[in-house]
């Protein structure tokens, strides 16, 4: 830490304090510990990076986890199944929300994680799915839940294709903004098409699904149903990733031109991942509609899209288990820290910046890191 860059740091942080004063007034002093913390964290991160012990520790655990993959997945599934037995209704409700958001995060991960396409209006598909179920089962009672569920997925998929065809020809940040526009347009239409969507009053009295006589009214039953859907979605996505489709998507993310030269129709593969994402988004929307029983436009704001993106980023871009962990952290944690709910979004914003700068591959690391460590292990000492 030579003098020149100490002086540089000093000016840097002093400047930040200066611009905080008009807003925080005397509370600016609270900002100081935050800086010291950030500065210390940064030093620790560098230390942890080079230190032999830390690196080997991380490698050994990733290896062990990868080695017996089946066991870890089995363990998690068992714990997830047992939760409703011990938990109170409130906690079951919270974990059901976690599951719904995990489905959404896994769906978004197909596009953001695999094909490297940033979708900002993803909540639009969630809304289309929810309202399709709401309209079909409650508003006009045309069919039962079991018909409405696939239809919701298909409706969202159709929107995905209609949006994808023009949008997927665009460059990264343009595409992100077009999808943002899509999300807002969906919400504005939901608010204004009173006849179809009930406008701001939304749709009431959406029934819970039922198998013959037995309806999933009790939170515990609905939790297991949602868990089954989540497991199915993860199975499908994991198997697709570990097949020609996953490889094609990752190849496109890596280098579109090279993929094209090898005979891959880049546009069609983009559209496939985009509409698959939309389909699972619609399914999650349908579950949300029957879980809550009442839907209105204010549940589908831009912040929800950002929340889901944050889960994917935090968990690890392109890592299916990462998205589930992200959902768990970002939905369950704030419930237990209810009194800090005011600071929730502030922390999310800071976390997104910190992760992009220090650890773009997220908590669980993208698939690549794990693979790389395995490589080094193969090379031997």
């Amino acid at each position: 830490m030579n003098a020149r860059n100490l002086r540089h740091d000093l000016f840097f942080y002093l400047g930040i304090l200066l611009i905080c004063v008009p807003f925080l007034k005397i509370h600016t002093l609270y900002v100081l510990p935050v800086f010291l913390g950030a500065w210390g964290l940064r030093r620790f991160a560098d230390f942890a990076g080079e230190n032999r012990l830390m690196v080997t520790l991380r490698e050994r655990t990733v290896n062990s986890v990868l080695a017996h993959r089946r066991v870890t997945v089995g363990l998690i599934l068992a714990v997830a199944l047992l939760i409703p037995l011990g938990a109170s209704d409130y906690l079951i409700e919270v974990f059901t929300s976690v599951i719904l958001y995990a489905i959404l995060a896994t769906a978004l991960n197909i596009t953001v994680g695999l094909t490297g396409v940033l979708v900002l209006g993803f909540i639009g598909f969630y809304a289309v799915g929810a309202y399709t179920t709401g309209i079909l089962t409650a508003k006009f009672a045309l069919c039962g839940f079991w018909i409405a569920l696939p239809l919701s997925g298909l409706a969202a998929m159709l929107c995905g294709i209609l949006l994808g065809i023009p949008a997927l020809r665009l460059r990264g940040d343009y595409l992100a903004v077009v999808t943002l526009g899509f999300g807002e347009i969906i919400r504005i239409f939901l608010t204004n098409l009173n006849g179809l969507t009930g406008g701001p009053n939304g749709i009431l009295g959406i029934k819970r699904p039922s198998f013959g006589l037995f309806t999933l009214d009790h939170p515990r039953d609905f939790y297991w149903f949602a868990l089954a859907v989540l497991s199915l979605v993860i199975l499908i996505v994991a198997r697709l990733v570990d097949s020609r489709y996953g490889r094609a998507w990752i190849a496109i993310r890596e280098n579109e031109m090279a993929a094209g030269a090898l005979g891959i129709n880049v546009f069609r593969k983009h559209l496939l991942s985009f509409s698959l994402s939309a389909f699972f988004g619609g399914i999650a929307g349908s579950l949300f509609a029957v879980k809550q029983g009442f839907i209105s436009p204010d549940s589908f704001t831009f912040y929800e899209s950002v929340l889901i993106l944050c889960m994917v980023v935090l968990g690890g871009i392109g890592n299916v288990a990462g998205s589930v962990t992200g959902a768990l952290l970002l939905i369950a944690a704030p419930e237990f820290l209810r009194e800090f709910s005011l600071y929730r979004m502030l922390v999310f914003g800071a976390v997104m910046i910190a992760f992009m700068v220090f650890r773009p591959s997220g908590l669980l690391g993208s698939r690549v890191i794990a693979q790389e460590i395995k490589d080094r292990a193969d090379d031997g000492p």
Partner: protein
Amino acid sequence: MKKLLVVGLVGLAMVACTKKEGQEGAVIKIGAAGQLTGPEAVFGSDMLNGVKLAVEEWNAKGGVLGKKIELVPGDDQAEPRQAVAVANKFVTEGVVGVVGHFNSSCSIPASEVYHKAGIPQISQACTNPKLTDQGFDNVFRVCGLDDQQGKAAADFAVQKLKVKRVAIIHDKTTYGQGFAEEFKKNLGTGVEVVAFEGIAKGEKDYSPVVTKIKSANPDLVFFGGIFTEGGLLIRQYKAVGGTAPFIGGDGIMSEELLKIGGPATEGTYATFGPDTKEIPSAKGFNENYRKKYGEPGVYSVYAYDAANIILQSIQKAGAADGKKITPEIRAIDYNGALGHIQFDAKGDVKESPYVVWKVENNKFKQVK
């Protein structure tokens, strides 16, 4: 290590929830739900303080059925998903009666959770008829309804102001649009509705709408919505040369309207309950509230009465059990700060006298 991290977290959550919620029965819990944070947090805190005052008064007299009353606050941040989470939290913590949810888009989904758990819910401000149309026996409200409020505003416009041309604006929320539709229904044939426009809540620029309204040269402009948009509309309407007065509902009854709208709000009408500062029965409430929490909000007195109704019903029912309390609430003949309150079959207040207020030299005054 990472997958184990996930397992650890989930395990921790399991442990956290297996321990039973505190000791049973030693305390009677009353829930108070509303938006305690966010842009309209002022409505949430008014409600919370009203309920706190009632609970403290009862606890001073030894609580109810010999047990202390514990107030459990719930912050739904004016968002339906959070409202359902708060409702479930109340059910788990063994709350026996709930005062709340402020806006309709929160009260309605929460009422389903309370209905399933058999816990009585009294809303102090949800004026949308749909809440009690659901046919839940445990759902009541102490405030008026949009149709009553709409009728009062329409009658005032037709009979007192004798207007012929009316423009209607609403903010496309469950409350705003419902109230605007009720007002339109009750106008009758003699009046021509020259405009019926929705605006986007949270926007700043309403100059296109007010320009369109001005060119329709109405005698009166009705606005269904909250004071923020109300103030902006009035201000921009006058800025483009509009002259007709505005009339709104309980949503615009707040000092904030005068601050945002500025001098342009002079002569604006609003329908609301009788002036709680004038009615004799509310004198006690106003003094105690001012001592503890400063100037009472428009809805504090409603929350105060709602809490008292629940506590009085618990005493009459002789048991802190939602199923027993609900019939007592339905049959109650209550005299409180708002005066005489009785509930009809659907759970609405039998008669809720709406009166019209007017802004005169920057203050709300009741029109006689």
